[in-house]
């Protein structure tokens, strides 16, 4: 019961903070319009990862003293201070019913979203593996004997390009080269893995749909630019249109209809100057900053006590 009250209290405390942070970060998304694709990838990745990493930081630092007390009972600080309420895994937390309900609701929403995201990723992996088993693999490109307009980069453990026989047969040679160059750019940069990681991060963060869509646009633009650098923007444009035409042919339940996305990409490719793709150093910096935050919280219990102060203010 003590542990349950702790979990519910943490849910009521942490998730609203994450929602607030995510809402405050949302206006930064508007800045992407003036950025190159690599910078947009970094910005959107940071906006998607920050709430998830902040969640882990808060959960880690709030639970840290209780977990440390398992190893070293002298670290159990529950009896050591009386000026604010305690958030303790073993001794529980003072929990008014209305906050218990908020905590339960927050954990439920997050749990459902995470489970849905994980199931989606598992299904993508299953479908990708089944298609790969039917296809012929050559140099990380698997040609699948399908008449659908399939041209995807997939694979968490083994990133690869899945391209249907219909795409291979229907595209002109320079269009096919452009399409494969685009997908190879995704594989090279590990985009399927990033997509999976960010899908899970987005499940934790509210308002993530817009940010995820902006990340996808940026990643596609970057792959377009990589393909345009080797094959020319016009060939990439024609490849996009040819595959889109194949997708028009009868196939039940195709993806979201966003024709403006295709038009935007073609217009962009036909304009002069593909932007070279930059590094993703910001992501490493962000991860480092969060790990540092966890370390500080773990070592000095500062965040833990701050959370307890906030909890006291809420409950009393």
């Amino acid at each position, binding site marked *: 019961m003590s542990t349950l009250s702790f979990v519910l209290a943490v849910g009521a405390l942490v998730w609203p903070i994450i929602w607030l942070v995510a809402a405050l970060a949302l206006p930064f998304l508007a800045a992407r319009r003036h950025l190159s694709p690599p910078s947009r990838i970094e910005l959107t990745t940071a906006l998607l990862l920050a709430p998830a990493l902040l969640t882990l930081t808060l959960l880690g630092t709030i639970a840290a003293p209780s977990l440390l007390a398992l190893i070293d009972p002298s670290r159990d600080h529950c009896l050591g201070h009386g000026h604010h309420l305690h958030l303790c895994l073993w001794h529980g937390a003072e929990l008014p019913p209305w906050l218990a309900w908020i905590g339960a609701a927050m954990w439920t929403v997050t749990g459902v979203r995470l489970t849905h995201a994980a199931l989606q990723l598992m299904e993508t992996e299953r479908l990708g593996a*089944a298609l790969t088993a039917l296809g012929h693999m050559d140099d990380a490109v698997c040609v699948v004997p*399908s008449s659908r307009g399939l041209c995807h980069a997939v694979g968490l453990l083994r990133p690869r390009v899945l391209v*249907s026989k219909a795409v291979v047969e229907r595209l002109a040679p320079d269009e096919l080269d452009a399409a494969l160059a685009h*997908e190879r750019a995704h594989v090279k940069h590990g985009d399927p893995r990033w997509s999976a990681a960010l899908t899970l991060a987005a499940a934790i963060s509210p308002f993530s749909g817009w940010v995820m869509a902006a990340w996808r646009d940026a990643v596609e633009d970057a792959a377009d630019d990589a393909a345009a650098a080797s094959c020319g923007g016009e060939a990439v444009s024609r490849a*996009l*249109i040819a595959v889109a*035409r194949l997708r028009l042919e009868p196939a039940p339940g195709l*993806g979201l209809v966003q*024709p403006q996305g295709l038009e935007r990409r073609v217009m962009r490719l036909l304009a002069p100057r593909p932007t070279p793709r930059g590094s993703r150093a910001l992501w490493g910096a962000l991860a480092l900053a969060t790990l540092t935050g966890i370390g500080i919280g773990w070592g000095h219990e500062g965040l833990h006590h701050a959370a307890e102060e906030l909890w006291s203010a809420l409950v009393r």
Partner: protein
Amino acid sequence: MSHLGELEQVVMEAVWAHPPSTVREIADRMRGDADRAYTTVMTTLDRLHRKGLLRREKDGLAWRYDAAMSRAEHERLVADALASALLAHGDAGLAALVDASADGALLDRLEALIAARRGHP
């Protein structure tokens, strides 16, 4: 069109290799790891027949099974079903060349734009 189970795949391979065949002939060809009881092979053949993957006709007292489609046709149908599922599934964990189905008029317009640019560089 669903993926075949392991035993169904083995049985289909046997039928594709030697069409048309009786249950006894197929069971006799399944040796080693693939060895199965006669009744198991019969049940599997009957299930594949009900799925529309096998045709059959009487040969005396026994049924003689033949594949309803070639292995290549079957693989194309399975691949089409899987590809459609992947296209409809959403974009978690993957990157698609084109993530949307546009209408034909837009594609015509974009093609005309490319042609016009080619004519007037």
